[in-house]
């Protein structure tokens, strides 16, 4: 703890950062009070709940089981979609990279579908899949899939050809080349893709939960938490939901960083 405080206040950057955040909260508070103080309607700025109220609302929801169930629901959706996207996306991307014919046939349709924003798939997916849960999972999968494939493909094609030649000259088989050179060489890009894909996954899960009204079947999720707060007109809870999702997203991306650190020892130098 002292170590952490030292890091925070020990240098100018830390002190400035902390003071910037404090000023931000003060401006937030002042903004939320503008209507009352000036007596004018400030185009909705006055509707922003003051930070103190948000804090109180946060303390209010933390003991509730329903709030934590939303966490569990959203996380399980994100993880499901994400893992499926990794399982299908990594081999697909690697195949695209190593086999010219496979790339020739499958890359063009992939490129045609890729620019369609993932959320545009939501209604089609709701129609196609029998349950809401499956359609959310599908759209989540799509969101991460395109990013992961593109990153894997780019990474694998950028591997320095001399590594492959060096391995071949030492008598490596095709199998060895793939497992010892191509896969580890692509790992950094896989993790970059995973980090970006994780961000998109959260966006998509959130949107899907909002659009489909995740409450009808299964657990609501954090997106539905925000949406129902919106429907119920509780601004404090909307902000609480936003902060919760921010924390959740942050936790998942740092988890990916941790895993990447574990799997790529040669990158720890940097």
């Amino acid at each position, binding site marked *: 703890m002292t170590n952490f405080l030292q890091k925070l206040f020990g240098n*100018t*950057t830390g002190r*400035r*950062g*902390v*003071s*910037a*955040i404090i000023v*931000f909260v003060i401006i937030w508070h002042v903004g939320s009070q503008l209507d009352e103080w000036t007596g004018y309607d400030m*185009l*909705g*700025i006055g*509707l*922003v709940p003051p930070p103190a109220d948000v804090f109180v609302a946060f303390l209010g929801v933390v003991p509730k089981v329903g709030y934590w169930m939303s966490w569990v629901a959203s996380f399980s959706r994100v993880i499901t979609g994400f893992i499926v996207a990794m399982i299908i996306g990594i081999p697909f991307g690697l195949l695209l990279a190593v086999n010219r*014919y496979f790339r*020739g*046939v*499958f*890359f*063009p*349709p992939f490129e*045609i*579908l*890729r*620019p*369609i*924003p*993932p*959320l*545009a798939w*939501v*209604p*089609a997916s*709701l*129609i*196609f*899949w*029998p349950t809401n849960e499956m359609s959310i999972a599908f759209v989540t999968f799509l969101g991460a899939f395109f990013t992961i494939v593109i990153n894997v493909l780019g990474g694998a094609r950028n591997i320095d050809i001399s590594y492959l030649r060096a391995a071949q000259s030492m008598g490596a088989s095709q199998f060895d080349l793939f497992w010892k050179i191509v896969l580890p060489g692509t790992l950094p890009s896989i993790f970059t893709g995973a980090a970006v894909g994780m*961000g*998109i996954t*959260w*966006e998509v899960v*959130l*949107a899907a939960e*909002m*659009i489909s009204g995740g409450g009808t079947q299964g657990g609501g999720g954090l*997106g539905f938490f*925000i949406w129902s707060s*919106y429907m119920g007109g509780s*601004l404090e809870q*909307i902000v609480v*939901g*936003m*902060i919760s*999702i*921010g*924390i959740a*997203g*942050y936790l998942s*991306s740092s988890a990916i960083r941790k895993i990447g650190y574990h799997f790529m020892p040669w990158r720890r130098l940097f």
Partner: protein
Amino acid sequence: MSNAANTRISEPQGIDMVFYRIKKNFTSVDPYLTVFGIFLWLFAYWVLCEGLQIWRFSKLPGPVAISKDWFAFEPFQGISIFTQEYYEHIRVSCQRILIAFGLATGLGVPLGLFMGWSRKVRDYVFPIIETLRPIPILAWVPLSILLLPGFEGPVIFLATLASFFVTALNAMLGVDSIDEEYFRAAGCLGSSKWDVFKNVVVPGALPFIFTGLQISIGVAWFSLVAAEMVSGDLGLGYLIVDAYMNNVTVPMVIAMITLGFIGYFSSGCVRALGNKLMAWHVKELAQQGR
């Protein structure tokens, strides 16, 4: 240099070059594979949705139904290339993207450059951005609907916010990426602070800025569609949801494909602009054989 008198093997020029490229292309196997791939994909799509109509695929419109409606004077399901409504949706979405992308670029690039250039600006601004950034853009939807007036306000706000973060961060990383020696060289040569900004910081960060802008326009479309789906009266995202609500599936798919095309086209425009502004960068990469 057209007077290549002494060069024995001259490169084909102008229209010859075009023919040469076409000829070269047809001797390789790639274009055939591409055509085959697209055909295979369309065929599979058709078989699943229209040919055999297996499982739930029958609920989705197949390629024949879509193209019939899309190019019909009087479409069954309301949207085709001959209906005014189709273009109205496209126009509204494009207009929103232009405003949002313009705002995000206009605010994000200068802010990012200053964050990269000045330790102080970064120390004060970066923590706030990093605090707000993990919140997914879509989590802002309800709040922005409540706080901002009308339909346009929230939609544009969301698209702007999304691309703003990407743009600002990339501009900052762009300045970070500039070699310290360029700053030193500029200092030696007697530059003022403003000279350094104009001649080193801005051009040096340009490659990163344009990488950022390419991502940012994609993100802007992503959030725009989401925002239009949740709140909106027009636009392609709205068209998708509206079709879904009215149980017509063809306009939904037409809107998806249109979004894909426009999205691809817009990022192509950004890339082209970038290449035009960074002739030096393009040539440098070409020299390195990339």
